Each structure stands twice: as structure tokens, then as C-alpha cells.
């Protein structure tokens, strides 16, 4: 059965200005695809469908190829990601030292049931399994910055500061 409907549609961005710059950074060949998708993910914070179509055209690739690669890697997202990215470590060390409560605090403060992105596109909450900093468990990584020994009561402040 065709599973077309089960794959989420990335909403269009209606903005190709950033794509132009990205495409100019690389040779127009298939080997550039992943690097271009990475830059699209960075600039647009997801892979918008119209931008993907233009990318396919620019590299002279079938849309299905671009779609296939874009859905394969976890680094790419088909839905807009929040301006700030919060990763709560759920690895063994963090788990033992209360990661579940930390996660719950984030969910409560952000109004998210599980993980995902807030409606205002400010935050994306994710869980990861061990970021290699078990000594400072429980660990939360906000926009690449590591926060150690996070207590649930600090969460509100962390969000307010937008991760700074």
C-alpha cells in the first residue's frame, strides 16, 4: 500500500534567497547533496518542501532521491525546529540522577506532552542517550551549551534565558 500519507509534508518556506547562497557554496553535483541539505537545515531550521524541489532541480536529481536522503538522517527535520534546541540526556547516569524529573519540568514549562517543538517555534525539546558528560549528570544541552547537575527547579530560569 502506498504510505504517502504517513510521511509528514514539510511546509513550504516561500523564500529562496538563502538557498541561492547555499547552492553557490558547492559544486552542482550529486555528491554535494548532503552538505547542501545540512546547510538548508541550519538556515531554515528544517527542510522546506519548495526548497527541496529547487535543490533537486539545481543538482539535476530526481525529487525522490532528495526526499529519500532528507528523510534518512536524523540530523534533518521535515518540520520546522524551534529557535532553541534543548536536549535532555536520558542516558544511564543522567537517568539515575533524576533526568526524568528534569525532562518533566521542561515538558511542563514548555507545555509539551512529550518531546517536540513549541507552537511559537521558540523551543524544540529532544531526549538523547548519553552525551559523554556523565560526571555532571543530569545533563541538558541547550544550543550546543552543556549544563550540568540540572535540578528541576532551575528549568524555568534556563528557559527564560533562552538557553544562555
Amino acid at each position, binding site marked *: 500500500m*502506498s*504510505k*504517502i500519507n504517513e*510521511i509528514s509534508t514539510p511546509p513550504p518556506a516561500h523564500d529562496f534567497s538563502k538557498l541561492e547562497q547555499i547552492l553557490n557554496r558547492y559544486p552542482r553535483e550529486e555528491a554535494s547533496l548532503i552538505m547542501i541539505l545540512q546547510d538548508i537545515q541550519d538556515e531554515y531550521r528544517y527542510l522546506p518542501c519548495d526548497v527541496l524541489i529547487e535543490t533537486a532541480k539545481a543538482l539535476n536529481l*530526481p*525529487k*525522490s*532521491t532528495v*526526499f529519500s536522503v532528507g*528523510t534518512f538522517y536524523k540530523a534533518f527535520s521535515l518540520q520546522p525546529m524551534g529557535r532553541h534546541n534543548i536536549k535532555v540526556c536520558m542516558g544511564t547516569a543522567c537517568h539515575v540522577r533524576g533526568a526524568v524529573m528534569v525532562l518533566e519540568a521542561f515538558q511542563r514549562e514548555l507545555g509539551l506532552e512529550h518531546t517536540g517543538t513549541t507552537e511559537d517555534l521558540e523551543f524544540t525539546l529532544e531526549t538523547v542517550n548519553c552525551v559523554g558528560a556523565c560526571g555532571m549528570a543530569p545533563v541538558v544541552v541547550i544550543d550546543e551549551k552543556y549544563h550540568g547537575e540540572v535540578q528541576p527547579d532551575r528549568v524555568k530560569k534556563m528557559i527564560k534565558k533562552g538557553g544562555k
Partner: protein
Amino acid sequence: MKITLNGKQIEVNPGEYLLSVIRREGIEIPALCHHDAVEPVGACRLCIVEITRPEWEGWSRLVTSCLYPVEEGLIVETHSKLVSDTRATLLDMQLARCPDAEIIQKWAKEYGIEKTSFPVREDADKCILCDICVRICNAVGRYAIARTSRGIEKVVAVPLELGEDQACIGCLSCAHACPTGAIEWKEDSNTRTIWGLTFTLEKCPVTGEVLGTPQQLDHFAKKAGLSRDYFTKSDKAHKHETAKKFVKII
């Protein structure tokens, strides 16, 4: 070049794959991701056989026959205990993935499995991710479908959301090549629907037979380097015309 297949010495052609030799010898093994029209990829692993050589001193290994080229002096077993046990495990897993796929049921039964010992996949379709449909579509020259996502979420899909102009021409090549009948499509007298796309059908003005979708006929005419006009009539109508001309000549 000679190999030993199930104890029998046979002559083989250099460069051919073990699977084609096995089939030529009339030995039946499951090979679900194999399709003669496209290059093998070794996705289903069901065509495994055990190979060894005298100098390996009793050591042997399993290889996918669809991807293994013949070698001088190779000793091949298609139904050794190791092969049968491994194949049975693979079929057991396939059955958990696609409990409704008749061809899996049939092969599983042959290897002694009536019911899978693994938890059955929820909302199971019949797709075993053999990749035949994708390879066929690429061979047709459309590149309309692709494997998307990964791991347990992987599915074959049309990037429908990526714009209106789809590469799919509704030719049904994928559906006909699918070993498990996983690709659903339907046709009434005027339209054909596949991959969630609906096409109108073109018919022969003489006989009224369905010729295909206009997109499909355009594509095949172009690919074959033939006039599109040739594709606006059915074979029967063409034959009829030729016959009439012939009658006139004599």
C-alpha cells in the same frame, strides 16, 4: 568453468551469478528481491547458499547467491542444514513483518513455519522492502518512488508532498514487479489510481481497449524513439490496419 552444486559437477559460464545457475538446474530457493530486469542488491537474504572449497579445509560460509559470481571449483549447497535453518529464521522474521503476504506464507510453510515466533508488526502491509519497485521505476527512467525514512519506519513512497508535478506516470511497472503484491492500485473504465495519484486512461479509438495513461504513452514513445501516434491505437487495431493494407496489395 565447473562448480559442484549439491554434489553434482556442472558446467557454468564465467561471470554469471550462482542464482541463475541454481535456477537453470531447476533447484527452487526463495529469492524475493531478485528481478531479472534489474541489477541485484541482496536485500532479502533469502537466496543464501553455503559455499566452500577443498582448500578451505572444512570451513564454509553463507553468501547471497543472487550476488555471488561463479568461481572455478566452488562447492555449493542450496539446502544444507545451516542454509535451511538460517533461511527459516529469515522467513520467520519476514512473516512477522508481512503476515498477509501469500508468498511469504508459502515459503515459510515450506521451511516448517506456520506461525511466526516473533511479535507481528502492527498495521502490517505486504512490503518486505526488497527495493524491486524502486529499481524498476528507475530502470523505466522515472525515479518516481524511493525508500524514505529509515529503520523500522522505512517505507517506499512517492514524494507526493514535493510539488504538483510528479514523476510517476501511472505505468504500473512497480506494482507488477512487486513480489508480494504490496503496491495497491485500482482502475475503472476511465481512471487509474496508484500511489495516491489518479490518471485518466487513454483508449484505442478503434477497439476501445485501454492503452494506458497519456503520461505513460508519452514516456514510452519518447523512450522507444517511436512516434506518439503509434501509441494511440491498440496492437489489435495496428494488426487490423496492416492486414487491410496487405489485402489491398495482393
